[in-house]
């Protein structure tokens, strides 16, 4: 079933605690998907590139004596490969043994850097961006937020996802959001099933795009990336996606300064929108949005094939 949520503040600067807001909304959607929870939040841009990557799956830590040494080797290789391509690592953080956050200074080819790092066995880049922080792990929002210290994350906007695994495994690789590799600061969450996934995946792979999972939702991120690579703006790419994607879906896309939503032509997947003067909040169910308010709010359901994009 899955639940998705998003929020964007239009006039509040970057000092809104969107981490706490996203956690409240995603926790209210736990019943739609308890397998994993993910966030893509947009905060302060300090001039560095933020790279979020994992060097193993959470499940890999169980039942293998060699995994800890392997993780150390992988991290060392990530460091050396980044430095080989001219990236200067200025800050290293890790919430878990397998999940890492680097701030780097880099002016080279970002796709080449991503490909070189992901060529290391077991390593996957979750996101690269100047203001994007993409975090996803197993468990509900309260668990992931606590694990990664997200409840005091300030920023302007974010999207999130609670996953009920139907099309692929329960692991971080298949968790949402997806980064629109290789575009910095573009992320996607999705609720639905795409029925032309394999056909379109093969076509996009022939064009040189990479898929890190077998989750149909990743197709949306790759498609958006492909269209933006051809010069489309976000809204045009999203409008075209409604025809391109077959199946039932509602998805959200976030960029450095935009938040968009698209709904399939059957309007088969839910989405509720609150549009205030200063803030837009949207979620699979109103019960999530209501966690942000202690008073009555006006909300609406977007219609079939509808695409909306908001700017912060």
């Amino acid at each position, binding site marked *: 079933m899955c639940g998705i949520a998003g929020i964007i503040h239009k006039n509040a600067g970057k000092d809104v605690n969107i981490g706490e807001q996203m956690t409240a909304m995603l926790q209210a959607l736990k019943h739609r998907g308890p397998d994993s929870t993910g966030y893509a939040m947009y905060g302060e841009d300090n001039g560095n590139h933020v790279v979020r990557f994992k060097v193993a799956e959470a499940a890999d830590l169980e039942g293998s004596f060699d995994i800890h040494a392997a993780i150390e080797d992988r991290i060392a290789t990530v460091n050396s490969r980044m430095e080989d391509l001219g990236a200067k690592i200025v800050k290293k953080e890790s919430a878990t043994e397998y999940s890492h956050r680097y701030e780097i200074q880099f002016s080279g080819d970002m796709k080449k850097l991503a490909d070189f790092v992901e060529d290391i066995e077991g390593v996957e880049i979750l996101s690269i961006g100047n203001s994007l922080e993409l975090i996803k792990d197993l468990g509900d929002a309260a668990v992931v937020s606590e694990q990664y210290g997200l409840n005091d994350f300030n920023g302007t906007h974010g999207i999130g996802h609670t996953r009920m695994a139907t099309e692929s495994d329960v692991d971080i690789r298949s968790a949402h959001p997806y980064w629109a590799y290789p575009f910095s600061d573009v992320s996607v969450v999705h609720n639905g099933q795409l029925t032309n996934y394999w056909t379109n995946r093969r076509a996009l792979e022939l064009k040189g795009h990479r898929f890190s999972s077998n989750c149909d939702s990743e197709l949306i991120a790759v498609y958006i990336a492909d269209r933006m690579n051809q010069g489309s703006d976000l809204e045009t790419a999203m409008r075209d996606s409604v025809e391109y994607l077959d199946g039932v879906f509602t998805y959200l896309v976030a960029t450095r300064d935009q938040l968009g939503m698209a709904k399939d032509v059957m*309007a088969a997947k839910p989405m509720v929108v609150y549009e205030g003067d200063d803030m837009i909040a949207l979620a699979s*169910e*109103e*019960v999530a949005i209501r966690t942000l308010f202690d008073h*009555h709010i006006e*909300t*609406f*359901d977007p219609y079939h094939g509808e695409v909306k994009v908001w700017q912060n």
Partner: protein
Amino acid sequence: MAKLKQETSHEMGLHQEQLKGRTQQKFFSIDESANLTYFHSFEVDTNKSAKIDALDMTPREINREIRALMEGGIGDITVDNPMSRHGVGVGILNRLNLTFTDSLGYFGCGLIDGPNVHIKGRVGWSCAENMMAGTVVIDGNAGSTFGAAIRGGDLVCKGSVGARTGIDQKGGTIIVGGKTGAFSGFMMQRGRMIVLGDAGMNLGDSMYDGTIYVGGEVEELGVDCVPGEMTELDIRYLTEKLGHYDMKAPRGVEKMQKYVSGKTLWNYDNLEPAEKKLIL
């Protein structure tokens, strides 16, 4: 028991229209609601009121509290702070005046038979699904599958609603003050749907019977749905029904367009096997 008012749907002439199938339809008249008898229901007094603050209650606790109050003879209940929770106000098979002072989530007021409900907010998906009788009036907007498979009663949304409104509608009346989404009236079998605003694509797709009135533009008709001819009866019906809920067609009821089923399913008029046995 007070004598039932005699101006029924039959007297209004609503059954003179050419319904193509057999029908056991009895149109719910709100004027008669006080006279309806619900077997095994609680004797309630609508002059006795109570309030529930649902802020920290689960849906099950809210529903149980409503039932407990009805069991105690309370006939007028107000629920504060429902906070868009799902499955609230369901399964009420009783006369009752029930007010929610804020929005409900999914399946609000589903499976009800008799209560008069006022929701001072919005409702999520599948509001009043399988409703049998009574009234549900929503001040705000509504989500998709609004009034799915309702059998009777009046279901009124003053705002706009999502997709598949009245899917599998088997009776009753659905009124939408604003716009309705795609596939509204999908597989409609009986009853009436009144949409004062626009209707999305595939309106009335695969409908067997029933009537849809639209005040605005229709994006596209579905398979089997065709325009019908507005009659004086239709205009009288719409005027009375909308007037009861203080609603008006933006361009007047005379300008509304009527839609009906374009053909009969090949076996729709056939008798059930058990019925054939009776007459053979």
